């Protein structure tokens, strides 16, 4: 039998002498190598899986049974580093799903990001997420101030203004008569004017409305489109009789309204109020 010099000089020359031990050693080595990679995979796979899975789970927050919804919420909560994951997706195409998760799980850690991105949000949905995080009085106060400052900024997108007005109405934040006049009469998008009208209605529902603001509605009855005029008339119909002397004279202009629906409702309201 001949042995190669390589074999003689091999660092594992002992394998010929201690073959059983060497066999055991190689088995162990292979085992630990595999175990290392499997462990590595197990460590990162929840993160990899989570990246795909959280969207699937988040879409089940609505439209599903309460059981599935709650199960989805519980599973999402277990995802490691969720806030960091969401932060990265906040400016991407899945931002609506991210906002849903933030709002549902009340992830206040992402408040600074929401405030930053909401400034140029053309959909208004960042404000919905912010509203969901308003769980303390101090936060309500802080966000109300921020919203009010953005409301009158010409660069704030219209959809954001609608959400802001809805929120300020719900929080019973008072707008000045000058600001309200601008929003009711001078805003270009009808949806913003409609939201301003709804804000005024909310003030009166909460019994914090000012009679002087009702006078603005006389001009609202001269604006377009017809849906705003109709909304104003419905608002009159809900007001306490105390204010009737204020708004009843306004109806003279809508008795000859060019839109048949507005005209008819105006006539009915006028008849009803004069009884």
């Amino acid at each position, binding site marked *: 039998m001949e042995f190669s010099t390589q074999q003689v000089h091999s660092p594992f020359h002992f394998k010929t002498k201690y073959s059983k031990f060497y066999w055991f050693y190689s088995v162990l080595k292979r085992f630990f190598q595999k175990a290392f990679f499997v462990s590595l995979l197990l460590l990162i796979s929840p993160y990899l899986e989570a990246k795909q899975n959280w969207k699937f789970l988040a879409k089940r927050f609505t439209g599903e049974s309460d059981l599935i919804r709650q199960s989805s919420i519980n599973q999402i909560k277990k995802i490691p580093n969720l806030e960091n994951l969401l932060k990265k997706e906040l400016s991407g195409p899945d931002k609506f799903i991210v906002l849903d998760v933030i709002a549902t799980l009340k992830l206040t850690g992402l408040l600074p990001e929401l405030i930053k991105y909401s400034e140029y949000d053309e959909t208004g949905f960042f404000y919905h997420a912010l509203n969901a995080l308003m769980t303390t009085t101090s936060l309500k106060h802080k966000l109300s101030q921020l919203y009010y400052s953005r409301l009158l900024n010409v660069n704030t997108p*219209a959809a954001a203004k609608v959400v802001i007005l809805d929120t300020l109405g719900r929080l019973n934040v008072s707008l000045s008569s000058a600001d309200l006049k601008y929003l009711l009469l001078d805003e270009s998008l009808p*949806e913003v004017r409609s939201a301003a009208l*709804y804000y005024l209605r909310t003030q009166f529902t909460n019994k914090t409305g000012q009679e002087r603001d009702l006078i603005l509605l006389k001009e609202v009855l001269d604006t377009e489109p017809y849906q705003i005029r109709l909304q104003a008339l419905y608002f009159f119909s809900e007001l306490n009789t105390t204010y009737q002397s204020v708004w009843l004279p306004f109806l003279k202009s809508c008795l000859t309204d060019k839109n048949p629906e507005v005209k008819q409702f105006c006539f009915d309201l006028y008849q009803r109020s004069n009884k």
Partner: protein
Amino acid sequence: MKIYFFILLLFCTTKANGQTTELFLNRFYALISKQPTISNSQCYKKYSELFNKNNIDMRIIFGYKDARPARFVADRYERLTLINSLLAHCNSNRFDCDFVRSAEDGDLFIKYIKGLDNKIHKIELRLVNSSVSPDDEANIKDPFQIWKSNNAAELFYEGLKHADIIFYNGHSRDGGGPDFLPPRLTNKHHIDYHWYRTKKLGIKNMKQALNMAEKPPAIIGLFSCHSDQLVPKSQISSRSEWITSKKLLYFADALQNIKDNLSEILSMQCPNKF
């Protein structure tokens, strides 16, 4: 010289009809645009029939999109997101844009396009939602809510009788059908799905409207969860092309689907369903 005279004539006609400069420009751009071409004969026939009138009646109606058990109602905001797209300037490859809004009717959006017959056609798109405010608790006490719901429902069901293209974006109410009213709730303030599944009011109203239609819409889109189950069986082989969903539909996906379908139709692309 002739072209200037023609432009002047077009401008005067537009102004005489009380339309704005924006509409004039919209019409002008349609006039100078290329005539669309379609090689697929079946698709060509569908679009020829669809755009064979001067005025094309399109409707997109948002149902009452509550998020019970929360009080939040979202359709007003989703409608506004769509309005942003409609009024934006068109980038290349998009056609769900460059609409002009009517000053008198806040739900009416107009666009002119060139048809396969090389003539100008006016798209009258009505875009309506069902809720007055984002608070369901407040809405059920608001008399204006009744008007809003009735207005949306009427536009939808009348549209099934008369419109050329109609899209619904809202809840399916677990098979009950399209819904434009605040939800019916159980004692625990959850949606009363049993009631919706039993009564199926939305589906019944749809069937009735379609049965009364002399010419049902060429395209009916139901952008709601499992909406393939809402299509009345009698309508499956009808002349209408149905766009439905076989699964749950997330709101952002539904919105994007509406935009994509609208763009596809206005640019006369030939989807598989044609």
